[in-house]
């Protein structure tokens, strides 16, 4: 009897839907709030959200982020305001995917996305540069730098609103 009971359990599980995935042939979708590789976001017109403030780097407990800033001009504008990230690097071997950078960012420029397949054969390859991190230009948008009307993008951070 005990034997049959045991076999019943086995048969029940054989007939059930499989819980395992044949990774890498089959990839399991991740949750909405999964924290994978970072992406640097753009505005709809293609301008970069990142203003090179390095607050993400300051917040990072693993010291994985490296930012060097430079100055925007209206003829060569990467982001709104005066400052943009000239160099932006994340060392994925150091990153612990805590998402503090996301929290620190004043412009919601850095977001931990769903990409998790990060593997390298060389330590140096673990450093993701700005080109690798930044989102593609949205349709209708234009790649940076932009040439813009003087004083049309003076403010780095979207204006604050009164509490509703």
């Amino acid at each position, binding site marked *: 009897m005990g034997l049959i009971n045991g076999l019943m359990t086995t048969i029940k599980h054989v007939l059930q839907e499989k819980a395992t995935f044949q990774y890498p042939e089959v990839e399991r979708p991740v949750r909405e709030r999964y924290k994978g590789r970072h992406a640097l976001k753009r505005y709809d017109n293609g301008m970069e959200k990142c*203003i*090179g403030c*390095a*607050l993400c780097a300051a917040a990072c407990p693993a010291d994985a982020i490296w930012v*060097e800033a430079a*100055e925007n001009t209206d003829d060569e504008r990467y982001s709104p305001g*005066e*400052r943009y990230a000239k160099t932006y690097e994340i060392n994925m071997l150091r990153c612990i995917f805590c998402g503090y950078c996301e929290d620190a960012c*004043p412009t919601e420029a850095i977001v931990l996305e769903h990409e998790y397949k990060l593997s390298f054969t060389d330590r140096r390859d673990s450093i993701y540069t700005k080109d690798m991190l930044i989102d593609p230009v949205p349709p209708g948008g234009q790649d940076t730098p932009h040439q813009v009307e003087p004083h049309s993008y003076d403010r780095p*951070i979207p204006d604050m609103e009164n509490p509703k």
Partner: protein
Amino acid sequence: MVTIYIDGVGYEVPAGTNLVDVAKFYADNDIPVFCYHPKMAPVGMCRMCLVEMGSVEKDKESGTVLLDEQGSPKIRWMPKMQTACTQTVYDGLAIRTNTQQVTEAREDIVEFLLTSHPLDCPICDKGGECPLQNLTMRHGPGVSVFYFEDKMHLAKHVPLGELIYLDRERCIQCARCIRFSDELAGDDVLAFHERGRALQIVTVSDPPFDSKFSGNTTDICPVGALTTADFRFGARPWELKEVPSIDPYGPEGANISLSTRLDRDSGGGIIIKRVMPRQNEHVNEIWISDKTRFGHHHTRHIDRLVTPLHREKNTLIETTWDKAFKQIIDKLKGATSVGAIAGPGLSNEDLWELRQLVLAVGGSEKSLGIWPATMSGGEVVKQVGIAKGSNFNTMGKGTVIVLVATDLEEEAPIWWLRAKAARDRGATVVVLNGRPTKMDRYAKFSLRHEYGDAVGAINSLTAHIVNGNHHKADRAEGFAELQKALKKVKADDRYAAAAEAIAGADNVVVFCGAEGVTLAQHAELMQACANVLILTGHVGRTNNGLIPVWPGANTQGAIDLGYTAEATAELLQNPPAVLIVAGCNPVGEDIAAANLRNADFVIVTSQFDTATTAIADVVLPQQSFAEREGTFTSGERRVQRFYAAQGVIGESFPDWKIFAQVRHAIDKSTAKVSAGAVMAEITKSVAAYSAMGYKNLAQVERQFPDVGGTDQYYGGTAYQNTGGIGVQWPVSAENAEAKLNVVPVSSEKSKAKGLLVVPTTLLYDRGMLFVRSEIMSLRIPPAHANFSPADAQKLKLQDGDMVEINLEGASLTVQIIVNETIPAGVITLPKCLSDQPGPFAPMVAGSIEKVAQALAATGD
């Protein structure tokens, strides 16, 4: 000392000091301030420092303090709060800083300031070391009752000149920048424009923000409203590593902090991102000149020499250190004569090793020259140099500051700033020169002498002092002879009042430069100054003595280690078989150095290709001050350390290491492995330097006022001194027993006829290091000469004409400026502005030919 009460606790504090300062220093009570700055007169504009204030009640008859029931003093409080920054402490002053009233006042002020503040801290260069941020965190209300929509939006990128940018939104209108430029720097360059909410900072000078101290306003601005073009967005303050260093340009020895960081554009190496002042109340307080602040770009310039070069078939080609060393060693071993010329930026360690090398291969002290070779008088400094412990901060009423043959603001801006501050506190300034300079504005006595007659001018002073019986000859050795010689001096009456002021002063400091003075005359001029100081007893006491306005950051160190300008003069006349030129460019700067080509074998250490490397047989890449350790000795004989800040460029080496290795190969002496070890040897060999071990030099002390601690809101972003305040060596006059030599000096003028060309020194020139800082290029004037209107008329020249001036076989093409401050018969010719070498000593001009018309004059 007086007793004051802060939050019920009594403190003993010095009378007459500022309440905010003493509260911080003695009671550790940080009264928040925005507009108040410890270095400037209070204005009470921002109201951030409001406190409750009162006075202790005293018994009218006996003056004893009345006590209340608890036994603490009875205090009569004022009905309204008062600004602490405008209050000088007096006995019985009481304040309360922790009451609800005070807390609310602080919250309100911060809230008001923030109503129109952009709060773009994330991109603000001050963010992280911002007084407004810090005070908002500590005293701000946290919420605001104002509407965000009502915020003022103003221009964020207003250039005030090409060096400083103003963000109008961030300005909180404290006027610190205006007050600094106006009161301290004496430059009327900034002003408020409009009123109320439209109030803004504007620059009122042309060229805009025309001040040699403009960078300091960015430090003391309590917000990020003023930023430098040099640093803008260079890094966040918390990412920077501060390395203590010393200004590589001037004789003042200004303490600086090099803010360094890795940089991808520079191949991932550590570079200097900005230069900030480091507090040293004995030296530069919290100020640096713009040359010091922005002149650091040579340290990583693309043209830096990165490998040794040697001459093959008349061109310099790259070689290895081994080959270069071998060549040098072979030459030095067989040399019939050896000489060395040491540049102004060589550290004491470099100078020592160079000296040891020259001595080891048969040279003597006579073959150790300094560059620039314009000033003499090292022996005089040993006797009567400014006494140890002197400090311009403590000079004021009763002090006389004498400037002789120097344009102090151009030659030593920090001394100028401090001397002027002393004058504002009541010191008397006496200027003796052939033309007016900026200091004349503040001088009580502006005395003009003919160029070439500086010694005569000082002799007049001496004669007045002796004739008027104002002298004290008790310590003067050789007074009888001097007195005899003075009989022949016709004392010019114009000097009488100044002589009296000097004789009657409590303290006298003499700055002695070399404008319009030949090297031979300069030795006499220094002695003449010493005569005045000795005979009036202004030697060997704090705040008394002579400060030579040396041409380089470490000229004093070179002189201490046996180098002289006289030796340079000799080397230029008769070049030795093997010549070592370390870190300078005589051939490119001075027409008198053309002769150096005749040396058989020339070894040059340099950071760049210059006219001097062009005559070299071996060129060795030298490290800049930022890449290595070492010490400089300032004109006040303060030995100070600087530390290695940035990564080494190419294969360059510090000079001391190069010379130590060469010597090691020649005489098998142990080559030192660190700059500290070289200094250890110096301390054993040079008496004056016996206390200069690196450990001593790194000593720090608490300084007042407190600036740049962890709480940087107080005095701006000058950095705390962690690298050492340095050690001064004493002069012989400080030994009260020592006799001091007074020597008659001849006041004969040269008899040559013709226009006298007087080389002058400008702060911003095309010197081989400074010119690499392109950010300053607009501030460096074109090669020019100043003519008096009379001479210009005689020669039919107009402002702006290009002329060719012929001098002793050399000729120089410059633009002329007709300048009414120049005396007739004189042309002043600033040094190092042209690619051609110019004169370093005054000399009579040969022919002067016009080569091009002024542009305006040709206008049709």
